[in-house]
């Protein structure tokens, strides 16, 4: 639905719907922490940013973007179909080679407590690197969006 809409605002709203559905799927996988972070970060923060930019740019005349059938669309459809078949084949193949399921453990590892413990012990270094990445992103976004550089 998201890809076929002409109006970017409608597309963004469909993407938010998709994010909520995905959050529900995370809950079915017993990943509570990831589910809530997903809703907060994606549906809350990123999509607000998207909608804000769409409305700021005022893309009312979307018909100018010409959605006619072109050779590019046909190539895109062919490539994507090939990719989908490939992925399905790989996942179907993986089914026979998976180790035994330990799904009963998943309720334990999805909690905030367990993830927090892991995050600040085993994954402490990537966590710190993330903070630097976010700082760089903040600075980059501000510089890029500034009207002109002094």
């Amino acid at each position, binding site marked *: 639905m998201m890809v076929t809409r002409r109006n970017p605002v409608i597309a963004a709203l469909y993407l938010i719907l998709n994010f909520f559905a995905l959050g529900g799927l995370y809950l079915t996988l017993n990943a509570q922490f*990831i589910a809530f972070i997903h809703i907060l*970060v*994606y549906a809350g923060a990123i999509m607000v940013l998207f909608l804000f930019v769409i409305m700021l*740019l005022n*893309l009312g005349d979307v018909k100018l973007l010409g959605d006619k059938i072109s050779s590019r669309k046909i190539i895109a459809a062919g490539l994507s179909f090939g990719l989908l078949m490939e992925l399905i084949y790989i996942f179907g193949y993986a089914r026979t080679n998976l180790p035994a399921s330990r799904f009963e453990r998943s309720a334990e590892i999805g909690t905030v407590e367990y993830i927090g413990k892991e995050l600040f012990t085993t994954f402490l270094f990537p966590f710190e690197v*993330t903070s630097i990445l976010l700082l760089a992103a903040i600075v980059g976004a501000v510089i890029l969006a500034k009207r002109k550089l002094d």
Partner: protein
Amino acid sequence: MDIQPYLLLSAITFTIGVVGVLARRNAIIVFMSIELMLNSVNLSLVAFSAFLGDVTGQMLVFFVMTVAAAEAAVGLAIIIALFRNKQTVNLDDINILKW
């Protein structure tokens, strides 16, 4: 617990994202398609993490989310800067990097 439906859904959403990137010319829609692809990968990571009882997959999802947030902020800033200079978000009109 069967992992197959999650992986299938992940493959399908990833392909939808690829279609969006390849077929659409609106920079913002292309950008949202990239988010969709990141999300489909997250879904299969969480599915495998739950299936194997290993928390590493969920940690990776956490880091992917922070990278996606940073990428969204920077990318939208680039789109705003482009729109300010060229008055368009159509990717076919943005060709100043072409030789």
